[in-house]
């Protein structure tokens, strides 16, 4: 299948993902360094004046969210995909009405 020009540009970026992620890491490092040189200018909460606080909290949040979500998922929430299928077969939960009348005879 022929790709559009835009598709080819994106494909090139995708194929050079090492380069892209390297570039992003440099940007992130520069961002934190810049934060050390230019303070944020807020001090309503004590951490707001710390340079790099956002970076630490971002990484921390990400880990907390993933760990907690997956824990809840595996421990309590995950069900098989057909869990609610009985709703689509009208009598799976309550049984076949024809049989129900005779079942406890």
């Amino acid at each position, binding site marked *: *299948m022929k*790709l*559009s020009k*835009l*598709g*080819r*540009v*994106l*494909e090139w970026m*995708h194929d050079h993902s090492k380069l892209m*992620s390297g570039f*992003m*890491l440099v*940007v*992130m490092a520069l*961002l*934190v360094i*810049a*934060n050390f040189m*230019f*303070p*944020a*200018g*807020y001090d*309503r*909460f004590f951490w*707001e004046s710390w340079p*790099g*606080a*956002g*970076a*630490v*909290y*971002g*990484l921390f*949040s*990400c*880990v*907390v*969210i*993933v760990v*907690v*979500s*997956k824990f*809840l*998922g595996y421990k*309590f*929430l*995950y*069900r*098989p*995909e057909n*869990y*609610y299928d009985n*709703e*689509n077969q009208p009598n799976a*939960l*309550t049984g076949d009405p024809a049989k129900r009348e005779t079942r*406890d005879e």
Partner: protein
Amino acid sequence: MSEIQVAAQAVTQSGFWWHPSFVLILGALVIPFLRGSIQQGYRVALALVFVFLVFQTQTGTYGQFQVAGLDLVTGRVDKLSLAFAYVFSLITLIATIYSLHVKDNIQHVTSLLYAAAATGVALAGDLLTLYVFWEMMMLASVWLIWRNATQAAYTAGYRYLMVHAVSGVMLLAGIVLFFSDTGSLVFDQMQATGWAFYLILFGILINAAVPPMHAWLSDAYPQSTITGAIFLSALTTKTAVYTLIRGFPGTDFLILLGVIMALWGVVYGILANDIRRLLAYSIISQVGYMVAAVGMGTVIALNGATAHAFTHILYKSVLFMAAGAVISMTGKSKLTELGGIYKYMPITFLLYMVGAASISAFPLFSGFVSKTMIVEAAAVEGIAWVWLLLSMASAGTFLYTGLRLPYYTFLRKDVGLRPKEAPWNMLLAMGIAAFFCIFIGINPAWLYSFMPFPVEYNAYSAGHLFWELQLLLFTGLGFFLMVKHLGGERKLSADTDWVYRKFAPKVVYRVAEWVRSTWRAIIGGLLGITNGVWRSMSRTYGDEGVMGQTWGIGVTTIWVVLFMGLYGLYVVLF
């Protein structure tokens, strides 16, 4: 009296006003009589007329009349109602363009009635008008689910209807109590207390999808039609946010509910496998910010809630439209079945990323100028836990809407899908919405000019930029470190709808079973007693009993002679 006041009063007294909702309702009813490209042209023209009518509406009070001694105001137009009406009309136009190729008159009519009703709620000046439009919203919107024509859509739509019926009944009961308490139907900040206050509030909170009554949303929206989802994602929850801002600013416990809501959406967004269910949870998460802001109730918070509702409708529509385009072009809707289609649908992919950057609040995109306002409101109030948890939800939003969904839908490994790019009308609709996302991001003054109160907030301060960029980019780092664990799983995550989908039916069935068996036992017992009586009687009078026997003629003669003899003796002796 100043000239402006005189002019406003003249408008009020003239009483004639093109209510945009009524125009849209009347216009929508014509659609089934039109065919083909004439119908398509008419729908776009109607949406444009609607946008025009909304945008040329001036603040004031219109459409007042009396019914049975009740003062009704169909048009109370101030900055708050206008902000919502503006964005409702814009999304009506965008979604109409997105659904231009669809040939289903029921959807065309009901989607416009739905939009008209939502706008009617935003403009309603009294509670009764609000209630009528509220119910109309429910009745119109359910068709956007049912018309997907699957068994799952049918049952989900039915549950959607039931939950909203509860919301409507609570609202109506609250309104009746409110009227009997205060003798007025004016809808403004709630003065009522007790039952009236809480019934109206909880009726609204159901529509705002506040946990635990939020599961109707994540249950029904993924089952809706591709195009109906755009209307659904924009209107119901945001009208609820509008009524909260109007009626319940500063209701403390909404802060807690809002924060729970924002995080609830994040957890389920991380677990979801269906892409539209993931986006449905991100609606819940984002509306959480607005609910928390209403709870704070300060000027900056209420501006933030309004601004976030405005931007949310636009960026969320981009996300739902892109997801809808992927589903309609590939026929797949699950993360586990998608992948590697970015180069075949590059425009859809990039437009999705614009929406994703907006919802994640990247600088220069619309979410940044509205979401940070709500977080800032928490900082101004000095409520650290709200600030930290909303920031965490912000990181989570980027994690599942901005990274997880696009990575597993568009990038990852090629799973052999070769979809075509979405049709032009879908791309155009996404493009318009994406344009607004960027336009608001770089020109927030345009958005701020619609806000209910003057805005003195600067999103682009060094502090916000540093915090937000670091937060998001390092969340991204975390994502790529844990990417293996974040793919879709062929599982379903149970939510509170479990209560009425699994638990309640079981309870009902158990009770029915108990009633049935008890009834049978009673009937059986009664039958036993009757049988006993019958049997003991038949021992004497039955076929085998003494009295049941037939006698020979001789024996009978002897008995007859004996009794006649006794009778003779009686006559003779006495």
